[in-house]
């Protein structure tokens, strides 16, 4: 059994931020330096080759362009200050040509050529070219406003989960992404670039996490009212742990888990009569309108990032989800009494493979 993750608090940077609250001045000064690691979503804190390439490209571009920028501005300002000289027409033409050809043509041609020579191979390295050993394939399907994640290659049969993505570390993974409704975008900032999730199409992006770790993701294409609450918990684990994680989520194992605890038979009945119209729990229902809940107890967060998973969190969600995440597609179930919601929540929390 896996431990529950206290969402976000796992990041040491956050604690640093909290400490720095003591001294606002230092906070402001050090923020720029430390911000690179301040969050889980910084592209300047790469955890994979693709993201590292881009971060490097960024720093190189920033340095070079800062020089260009300061140079151009300084020249303009100097043109105001400098003493005026009279030139003959021929001299003027020569000076003008020097500026226009040197600054207007050679400088940009040189800069963009250098960039492309750097950038195109970097892009090529990210292509999902055929490998001698085919990479793990994970399918990610965007919904308004949650993530469906499928593992078609799992030994023993396909594994389905929602709003969490567990991937093997240290090896390339091909993500096959698509959408069930509007356009979303799949983006794990610390691992690499993003790709759109389009209905009717499957896009492939190859990413690799160097080491095991937790990497946040958030939908990057505006997808409607709750675009802001479409977080994906991403964790890279060692190969063995990954296999074990998949094995824990085989259909029959999950089905056993769902009915393991007799004290929740009432909650199960409520689930089957109400929730099962949209949600599936292995062994009880197969609906695909809302997120699959078969291993919800083991997920680190609820509602696409609205709540961290804690004891009682599911009940809290069930009571307040339209306030926590207004306009989400789940109908309000406030008409149920507290006891029912409490037992429903408690049962769902036991779905922890």
């Amino acid at each position, binding site marked *: 059994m896996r431990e529950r993750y206290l969402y976000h608090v796992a990041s040491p940077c956050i604690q640093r931020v909290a400490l720095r609250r003591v001294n606002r001045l230092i906070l402001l000064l050090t923020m720029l330096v430390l*911000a690179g690691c301040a969050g889980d979503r910084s592209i300047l804190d790469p955890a994979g080759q693709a993201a590292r390439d881009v971060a490097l490209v960024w720093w190189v571009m920033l340095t070079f362009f800062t020089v260009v920028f300061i140079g151009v501005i300084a020249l303009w300002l100097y*043109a105001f200050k400098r003493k005026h000289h009279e030139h003959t027409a021929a001299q003027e033409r020569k000076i*003008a*040509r020097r*500026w*226009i050809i040197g600054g*207007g043509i050679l400088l940009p041609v040189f800069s963009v050529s250098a960039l492309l020579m750097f950038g195109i191979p970097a892009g090529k390295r990210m292509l999902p070219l055929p490998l001698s050993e085919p990479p793990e394939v994970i399918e990610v399907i965007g919904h308004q406003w949650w993530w469906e994640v499928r593992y078609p290659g799992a030994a023993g049969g396909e594994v389905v989960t929602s709003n969490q993505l567990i991937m093997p570390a240290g090896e390339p993974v091909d993500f096959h992404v698509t959408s069930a409704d*509007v356009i979303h975008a799949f983006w794990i*900032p610390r691992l690499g670039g993003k790709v759109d999730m*389009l209905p009717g199409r499957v896009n492939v992006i190859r990413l690799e996490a160097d080491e095991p770790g937790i990497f946040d993701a958030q939908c990057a294409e505006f997808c409607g009212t709750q675009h802001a609450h479409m977080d994906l918990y991403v964790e890279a684990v060692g190969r063995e742990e990954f296999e074990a994680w998949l094995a824990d989520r085989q259909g029959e194992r999950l089905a056993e888990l769902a009915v393991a605890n007799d004290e929740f038979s009432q909650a199960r009945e409520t689930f089957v009569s109400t929730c099962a119209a949209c949600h599936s729990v292995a062994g009880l229902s197969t609906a695909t309108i809302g997120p699959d809940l078969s291993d919800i107890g083991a997920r680190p967060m609820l509602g696409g990032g609205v709540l961290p998973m804690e004891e009682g969190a599911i009940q809290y969600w069930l009571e307040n989800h339209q306030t926590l995440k207004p306009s989400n597609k789940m109908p309000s179930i406030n008409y149920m009494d507290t006891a029912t919601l409490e037992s429903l929540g408690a049962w769902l929390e036991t779905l922890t493979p």
Partner: protein
Amino acid sequence: MSTIDREATGPEDLQKLHDDLSEVWGNPKGLKALTIVNHTTLGLRFMVTGMAFFLIGGILAMLIRTQIATPDQNFMTPEIYSQVTTMHGTVMMFLFAIPILEGLAIYMIPKMIGARDLVCPRLTALGYWCYLFGGIILSFSMVLEMAPDSGWFMYTPLSSSEYSPGLGSDFWLLGITFVEISALSAGVELVVSILRTRTQGMALHKMPLFAWYILAMALMIVVGFPPLILGSILLELERAVGMPFFDIAGGGDPVLWQHLFWLFGHPEVYIIFLPAAGIVATIIPVFAGRPIVGYGWVVFAITVMGFISFGLWVHHMFTVGIPQLAQAFFSAASMLVAIPTGIQIFAWLATLWLGKPKMKLPMLWIIGFLVIFVCGGLTGVMLALVPFNWQVHDTHFVVAHMHYVLVGGMLFPLMAGIYYWLPLFSGRMPSETIGKWGFWLVFIGFNVTFLIMHWTGLLGMPRRVYTYDTGFGWDIFNLISSIGGFVMSAGFAMVLIDIALHFRYGKPAKTNPWNADTLEWANQLPPSPYNFVSLPPIETRHPLWEHPELPREMQEGRHGLATASHGRRELWGTDPLTGKVREIIHVPSNSWWPLFAAMALAVVCISLLLRWYPVAGVGVVIAIGFLLRWSWENGAHPKAAPDAKVMPGDPPLHSRTMDGPGLWAMTTAMIANGSFFLSYLFGWFYLWTVSPEWRMPDASPLSLVALVVAGIALLGGSALMESSVRRLRKQLDKGLAMRLYGAALLGGLQFVLILWVMWNANLAVTETSHDAILMVGLYYALLHSALGAVISLLQGMRVGYRYVGAHAPFEPVVVAYFWRYNVVVFWILIAALAVLPRVIGG
């Protein structure tokens, strides 16, 4: 020719000349002010309305910055926030940036090229009313809390009826299309005015650079806007009728919308930038006290930008999943834009370098432009790099970049231009002190807001989120951005107060207060409705520098067209290349038709919004009626130029020639139409080859025989039109009416045949995108056949009234051009829709 200096006129004669000109050109007061077509008045109306929308857009921006100033805010609900962000982008782009620059061009171009008005004044008025009504309709959606909320680029399927069931998207699609009529009208007439109405001797290479910039902008509008108009029509048809152009299940493709949107959307950035750069290129030489360095290079750069900017649209779509090689094409093309940009920046630098620059208020805004725009340009090059783009696309980095380019590249030059031309607008000088305060507040506020926002984006903050959790390191930067935003607003408030106060307290300006070189400063301050008493011959690029007496001479009526006793509004029609005078163009005077036509179109827009289709149908008929009535008052019509007498030695009136500006306007309009048609063909082939669920029936549902017969009828009609024109060239107008009626009849036959094809095809337009897109093509052909028939019919009737004939041969030439366009397009349509599917098959 009477264009060379006349004798100095006596004071009484001069007074009479002024009175005559005022009588002919003057603006009516009261309710009749709604009929004004004069470019000076309408240019100001455009700019003032644009400023009003700028304030609305600015308030929306402040709401956004308030909401995301701190994490977990509840200032606005997510629904309202989406509406606010969508409307901020929409208002700023479509209702502020483009119209205000068009307004400036409308105001300035005739004055700069030595003309008295634009060449199609009623079109200016129609454009203004469409803009005003469209803008009001669109803004009204916010009052109803029904504003569009799918982001300003309206990506489907989010904007489709399934995911946006309210009226929001409809407001956007219909309102924006309505406003685009305005942009297109301005585009067409600016092109024709710049090419055909420059004063005598102003050859292409002596034109002020501003006119080059506006020429490029206008041509880009003409080519760039139609793809979005097509896209909007298709999306509105999908929403209203259920034709599945963008719906995967029906064989459509949402990515088609993105292509159509960005085919417009990227050029649009340059449509905004070019006129602003034109302001920069006008102001810098004046304050450097010397001609621009590298005039030819700048023309080169303008041309390159005008084209390359159409080859960049996919760089907004790098994450869509297009093959990387194709992305590399667009990446490389995007980077090429650095070259013309670099050339302009360094040409301006060289001008300052070799001149004696003075730091006046307009120049301060130019420096602000430089700092911000160069920064935005450099991040633009970064974004063109595909792997980097994949990381920062749709984050606040892009938001920051875009504001650097648009505010730096458009707003700062615009402010420089407004301060520079204030004496022209008001006859008074701006104040240097409050103006400087305003500048620094805006400049500092802007950079505080947006420089830091690059960093927020790099830290992973996506755009358009209404809330965010604390703990990603975004909080402090968002707060700083919001504070900067409010500082910037305070700056703009100060600038607006300064401008408002100057109308009352500004020092009166003397003639040519900045010692500029271009003709607009030869106007009285503020200008009279007719601009110039006489139109001067020009020999250099810098008339006022090399001929400082020119304003006085022009005011004394010592140059061309210094008469108005004939009651016509006249300007020169000159050769587009050499600037030699070819004819006298007489332009229509004040008219109700533009307002009425725009009101009818507003009724159409609103009834489409409310799904009152019969009312919309009636509105369309009425609008067309007004427009046709408008076209009736042309040529030898009593309200236009019933008699053709001109001063001895002057060239003939344009309506008495075969090559008047109307022909150029028709050609330009057909470029726009052609761009629309090509976008349609692109859509057809795109869906055919790329759409994942495309279904092509085994046999084409269109009757090839009927279409070919229709095509032959069209050819026949066109041949009749051509022969009419040939005979008119030989001064023959016997049987002219019969030929025109014959053409109308053949056009009618084509119309009936297309209708029959539509009827017989049994298209299931709500089932498959194939049938839906075929139907759109057939409707396009149907409308064109009807239009060809109707305008030929009207010409036939005009022959009866003697408005058209050997003595006034102009209009049939214009109509014949339309027929030519029709022939080409219709046969391409037959080949693409009916022949190719038979040859290749699904």
